[in-house]
C-alpha cells in the first residue's frame, strides 16, 4: 500500500485520491480538520497553508488544507455550510497566521482559539478585506466641495 493509500485508510475516507493540476486531492467530507491534522502529524507531513474560498450566494466556504508529504503536494477539501470550523492551531503551530488571516479576510471563525489581530489595524473589522464586495460608485464625488 502506498503512503497516500495508507493515509486515506487512516482517515477512513472512501473517495479516492484525485491527482491533477499540481497536487493530489482528497475530499474530506465526514472528517474534521483536527482529525486530518493529527493524521498528518503522525505521518511526518509538513503543513503549507490553507486556501479559503467563499461560495456563491452565501452558501458557505470551501477550505483547502495543503500539506507536503516527502515532496508530494497534498490538498484536502472541506466544505463549510456555516461560518465556523475547528482550529488546528494547537495541533499544528504553523497554521497560526493563516487561520488568523482567513478569520480577518472572510470573518470565518476558528473555534477553540483566540484570533489576535494579524493584518487588522485599530478600527478595522473582520471580513472587510476580501469578503465584502466593493460597492460601485455611481458618480465620482468632487475632490473640493463647491
Amino acid at each position: 500500500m502506498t503512503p497516500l493509500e495508507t493515509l486515506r485508510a487512516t482517515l477512513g475516507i472512501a473517495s479516492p485520491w484525485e491527482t491533477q493540476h499540481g497536487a493530489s486531492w482528497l475530499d474530506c467530507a465526514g472528517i474534521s480538520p483536527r482529525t486530518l491534522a493529527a493524521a498528518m502529524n503522525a505521518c511526518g507531513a509538513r503543513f503549507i497553508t490553507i486556501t479559503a474560498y467563499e461560495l456563491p450566494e452565501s452558501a458557505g466556504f470551501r477550505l483547502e488544507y495543503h500539506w507536503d508529504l516527502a515532496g508530494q503536494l497534498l490538498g484536502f477539501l472541506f466544505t463549510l455550510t456555516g461560518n465556523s470550523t475547528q482550529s488546528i492551531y494547537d495541533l499544528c503551530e504553523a497554521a497560526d497566521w493563516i487561520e488568523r488571516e482567513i478569520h480577518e479576510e472572510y470573518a470565518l471563525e476558528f473555534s477553540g482559539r483566540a484570533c489576535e489581530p494579524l493584518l487588522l489595524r485599530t478600527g478595522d473589522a473582520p471580513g472587510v478585506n476580501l469578503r465584502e464586495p466593493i460597492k460601485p460608485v455611481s458618480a465620482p464625488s468632487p475632490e473640493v466641495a463647491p
Partner: protein
Amino acid sequence: MSYRIPMGPYHPALEEPYKLEMICEGETVRDARLHIGFNFRGIEHLAETRNYYQVIALMERVCGICSFIHTLTLCQSMEQLAGLTPPPRALYIRTIMAELERLHSHVLWAGIAAKLMGFKTMFMTCFEIREKVMDILQAISGNRVNYSMNRVGGVNRDIEDPHAILLMVQALETEMARTIIPIFTTSATARSRCAGIGVLTHARALSCAVVGPTARASGVPQDLRRDAPYAAYPEMEFDVPVEPAGDVRARLLVRALEIMESCRILRQAIAKLPPGEFHVPEGKLSFAAGTAVSRVEAPRGEVMYSITWKENARNPSRVHVRTPTYANMPAVRWMVQGARLADTPLIQASIDPCYSCTDR
C-alpha cells in the same frame, strides 16, 4: 522586572515595516510578539480583477527581490489549467533566471547582514557584487527588478548569446569565491558575531514548518528543486547545503554555500541550453475550470500559488499566495527568546524577511 520594547514598525534596524514587540528582563529578551500588515495591499483580491496577461504583471509586484519567482510559480499553475507545456529552452531560461535571482537575493542579504554585524566593508563588497548580478539579469531580460520574463507557455525573451552570459557568471563566481565566501565561512568577525545566537532548534523548525535556508540551517533537508523538481532542475546536478546548528551562523553558512551551488547550476544550464523555441505559439488561451497549484523554491524558501478559474471566465476567481517569509517569520519569536536585545536586529534579519511578500 520585565518591560516591553517595541521595535518597529519604522526602525533603523528594519528594512521594511513590521513590529517586534519584545518583553525583556534587563538586556535579555524573554518573549516577543510579531505584528504585520502595515503594508497590506490586497493583491490576492486585486488579482480577481485582472485577466491572464494582467495578472502576471500584478503578481510580479508581490516582491521586488523575487519578482521572477512569483511569476514563474503563477505561470506554472496557469499552464496546468491551460494544458500547456513550455518548450525545453524556456525551461532552461527559467532555471537560469531563477538561479540568478537566488544569487541576487543571497548577496543582497549578505550585505544587509554584514551591515548589522558592523562589518561595513563587507556591506560595500556585497552591494558591488549585487550590481554585477543585476547587470547579468539586465543583459538577459532588459530589466533590473521586474524582469517581465515569464508568460503562460514559456518566456518572453531568449538568451541570444549564452557564451557572453557564461563569461559574466564565471567572472562573478571567481569574485565571490575570493571575497564573500571565505569571509562568511572563515572570518573570526562573522563567527564571533553570529555563532550561538538566534537558535531555532530542529524540533521547533519542524513544528513551525519553516522553509528554505531557515529550515536547512536547522538541519531540515528540504529543497523543492530536488524534492519536487520543476523547470530544468531534473537535469541539473547540485547539492543541498544543510547545517544542523540552527543559529545565525548556520543560516549564514547555508546561504554562502548556496551561492556556490547556484553558480554550479548556472554553468550547467547555460552550457546545456537546448535550441528551439522559447514559448509556445501565440494564440488566445483558454483555461479549464478548476484549481491548480504550483510550488517553487524561492531564495527565501518555498512559494506556493493556488489559482482557481471558472468556466469561460476572463479573470481568475481566486489567487492565493503562500510566501516563504509568511512561514518563517513566526519562528522569530522562538529565535529571540533568551537572546540579548542588541542581537535581535541581526536575528530577525537572519531569516531574510520580506514584508512586501508577507503583506501581499
